[in-house]
């Protein structure tokens, strides 16, 4: 092994990740095909999950939440990144303040926004009512039609700064000549943004979208803290459903079946996404 010190350097990390990732994944597979006594039951657990009405609700909610969040995170984050790349007095300070939502713990963002969205005493209802947008207070987090958009807004607030800072980093590598030649051609600011900046930061946006997708699928903090999946399962996402089946109904085997499907779907989606969008990063495999 002394000829191969690189492998020895890497080994400890591989062992730890193997124990805590590979083993649990394999074990989830086993659990999903057995009953609580450990007897093989074929696809019975999967059958239960697939034919449960709650599951299709959870799938729909998850897609709504994740895709809605990503759309606004990318758009607002990119616009903010472009703004922060301009020269203006106090730019350093504004850049720092933009990061606040991202730095604040998820649970704190959740509780603070829940308080701001409070039906009776919340500042948001006060703002919308006193500015005449609505004539009576809205039950943002208790009404089935507003709860998901409100949660998406919180999630977007939490993560668009991260997109902005990454876009900013990407923009800083754009060569000045590209802007100059665009200006010679008489491009307006927005034409410049669309034809010069966006193509240059495309790899960053592709990677960010993937990261946001994974984070979105994992995200439980905001929704679990604020609504626990309610009202009437309107915000029940798959991670909360797994938690409920496993630790409230104590159906570990069914939870495992849902976990396996969730996992398989995520990996399949990631692979397809990388195939379709990613231009091979230069350092891969070197």
């Amino acid at each position, binding site marked *: 092994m002394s000829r191969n010190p690189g492998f020895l350097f890497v080994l400890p990390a591989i062992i730890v990740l193997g124990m805590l990732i590979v083993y649990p994944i394999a074990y989830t597979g086993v659990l999903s095909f057995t009953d609580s006594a450990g007897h093989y039951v074929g696809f019975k657990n999967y059958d239960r999950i697939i034919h449960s009405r709650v599951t299709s609700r959870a799938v729909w909610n998850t897609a709504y939440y994740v895709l809605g969040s990503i759309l606004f995170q990318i758009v607002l984050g990119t616009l903010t990144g472009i703004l922060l790349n301009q020269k203006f007095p106090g730019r350093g300070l504004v850049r720092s303040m933009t990061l606040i939502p991202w730095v604040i713990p998820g649970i704190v963002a959740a509780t603070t926004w829940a308080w701001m969205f409070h039906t009776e005493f919340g500042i948001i209802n006060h703002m919308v009512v006193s500015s005449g947008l609505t004539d009576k207070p809205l039950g943002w987090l208790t009404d089935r039609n507003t709860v998901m958009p409100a949660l998406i807004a919180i999630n977007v607030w939490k993560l668009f700064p991260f997109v902005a800072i990454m876009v900013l980093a990407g923009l800083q590598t754009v060569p000045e000549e590209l802007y100059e030649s665009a200006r010679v051609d008489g491009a307006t600011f927005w034409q410049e943004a669309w034809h010069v900046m966006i193509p240059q930061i495309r790899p960053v946006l592709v990677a960010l979208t993937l990261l946001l997708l994974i984070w979105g699928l994992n995200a439980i903090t905001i929704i679990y803290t604020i609504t626990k999946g309610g009202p009437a399962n309107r915000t029940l996402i798959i991670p909360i459903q797994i938690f409920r089946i496993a630790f409230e109904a104590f159906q570990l085997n069914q939870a495992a079946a849902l976990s396996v499907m969730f996992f398989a779907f995520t990996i399949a989606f990631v692979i397809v996404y990388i195939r379709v969008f990613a231009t091979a990063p230069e*350092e891969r495999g070197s």
Partner: protein
Amino acid sequence: MFAGTVLLVFICLFPFLWMALSSIKPLGELYTAPPVWLPEHPTFENFTHVLFDSNIPRYFLNSTIISFGSTAIALALAVFASYGFARFKFRGKGLAQAFILLGQLLPTAAIIVPLFITLRIFGLVNSYLGLILVYTIITLPLSVWMLTSYFRAIPAELEEAAIIDGATRLGILFRITLPLSLPGLVAIIVYAFVTTWNEFLFALVLAQDYRVKTLPIGIAEFTTEFNTDWGAVMAASLIMTLPIAILFLAMQKMFVGGLTAGAVKG
């Protein structure tokens, strides 16, 4: 553009300010419509309530121990692994890198059930060690990824000179490579610490006892279905945010530099 900047700062800052203002309002000013903008009779009663009549101080201690422990382990593992990836060629390297990246793509909710059962078998549910180990798998993949690109950016010639002088690989790593990678190290320390400090789902499942529960769980506990002590929640939220804010402000330049450098190169 000016209007955009003002709006941006307002949106980013306001919730934080509102939390801080709410935390020093007495009950009467919290539960009133229309809301009072600035507290007329500022009070610290929410803070004294949180500090002396709740488990929050204990949870603070738990969070601190678990975050430090997990960050230390993730850092040590990441330093060695990244150095191996950045400086050596060996069979299975591509596979090993893909495997570590897979850890970052993993939906945590999908492995929580078997992780819970596994830790239960080893008696690690409701223990510091269990949570510390589990958090390592969340922070390790991205740490390895960031640090590998940092190490790669350091010219190998510096190390080759030391090899000729007879230095060992470990000696080189600790005396040459690590001191040169300080911004990268700071970035992953901040990343690992903050991620662990904020994590919710694993703590919810794996810490069911006040002796190991962390701050996020403690704050969620203030909220019950019918009654929430919003003043206490805001005070506890502020207490939880403070260490993160201080850490971030102190390390900001290095952290953002290290983070974005890794992102652009990776």
